[in-house]
């Protein structure tokens, strides 16, 4: 949870009066709130924490950090299925099925992340 991950802005739109972006985290795509970095533009990088862009980052720093996080499995830790991970840790069967409107498990493109 503490991890703040660099991501690249793909798209920006206003929703419910809030500035939101689609952000690519090395293959995992998520919605991110831009209210704290309102002048962030498409193509720029930012450090994102729990769905909020908190600070700008240059492309090279962002790319290096993403590659390291991917290599260390930290992206999986951040965006993977928390129930599965908790069940594995507890040594029990995974909880069967998530409620319909639970945040969908990130489109974890684990393969893609690994292959970067």
């Amino acid at each position, binding site marked *: *949870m*503490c991890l703040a991950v660099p991501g690249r802005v793909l798209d920006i739109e206003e929703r419910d009066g809030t500035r939101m972006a689609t952000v690519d985290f090395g293959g995992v795509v998520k919605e991110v709130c831009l209210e*704290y970095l309102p002048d962030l533009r498409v193509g720029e990088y930012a450090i994102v924490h*729990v769905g909020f862009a*908190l*600070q700008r980052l240059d492309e090279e720093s962002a790319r290096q*950090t993403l590659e390291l996080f991917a290599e260390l499995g930290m992206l999986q830790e951040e965006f993977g299925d928390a*129930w599965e991970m*908790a069940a594995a840790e507890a040594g029990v069967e995974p909880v069967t099925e998530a409620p319909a409107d639970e945040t969908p498990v990130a489109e974890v493109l684990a393969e893609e992340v690994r292959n970067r």
Partner: protein
Amino acid sequence: MKYIDEFQDPELARRLLDDIRATVTRPWALMEVCGGQTHSIIRHGIDQLLPDEVELIHGPGCPVCVTPLEVIDKALEIASRPEVIFCSFGDMLRVPGTGRDLFQVRGEGGDVRVVYSPLDALRIAQRNPDREVVFFGIGFETTAPPNAMTVHQARKLGIGNFSMLVSHVRVPPAIEAIMSSPSCRVQGFLAAGHVCSVMGVGEYPELAERFRVPIVVTGFEPLDILEGVRRAVRQLERGEHTVDNAYARAVRPEGNPAARAMLEDVFEVTDRAWRGIGVIPDSGWRLSSKYRDHDAEHRFAVGGIRTVEPAECRSGEVLQGLLKPHECEAFGTLCTPRTPLGATMVSSEGACAAYYLYRRLDLPAAKAREASPVV
């Protein structure tokens, strides 16, 4: 040079290490405040790479670990109610309360959901107007602004069925408490980079001056940490004690002014109990009176909870840097990620979890056999 191949730039890592070796003349103890940094340090064996004179002490910088047992128990009680959808970040699922955790509450039929962002919880509240949606708002200065914005949005959009169980903590008062302890050995701090991305560095000069400790804002990659150590050691050897920013690519001196303004609007500073440590004055945030309607503690009567900490758990000493995880008698035997006594063993940023994950082969053979493998 264990794990050195994993460094992004082994040559630069070697140069930083050489520089630290050439600079250090006597023992120094540095505390990394952030649990993410602790994991990076243990994962890469950075503490083993450093010269013997430089000791890294792990600080209380895991928000999950320091969330008081009483608050965990309140969360469990609220999450058990049939009318409630309880939303949390995933790393709270297995943090033990008195007798059980959120993972078990869901197994018993509680509607516990994991969200990536607090805004996801707000969306769940919009879609389920006949239910009470409660978000578990914990974390340091990095997580507090997103949570503050979410409460602000709930009020703006008139989402009355959304509330937050707030247990936010602040880093500077924790540094003050650590330095004020008579048993403190810390001579310098690696400050948590992403906390400073939000708050800037303005709170630190007074602490550096008062306690005569260098405070170096540090990132999370191995090279960031080596550079943070290098700058802290250089100051110590010169008898200096200033605030230095070694993570300038993500930390502006003023932090993020918009986020700080929202924090001031939605929260107010309060005394906060830290699990295993006790109450630290002014070390937390709670919702300000303007947002009291969205405070889950007010909405649900969860007072009068009696908490029982396991006597064997010494995580409080671990969190204060007084004890290394593997020095605890219960480590790897009574206490494992499968059967955790304290949050430091299950949180993804917990120091005990880091030692268990990356150092379990260092356990004595008998202990290692009893310990259940995690990965």
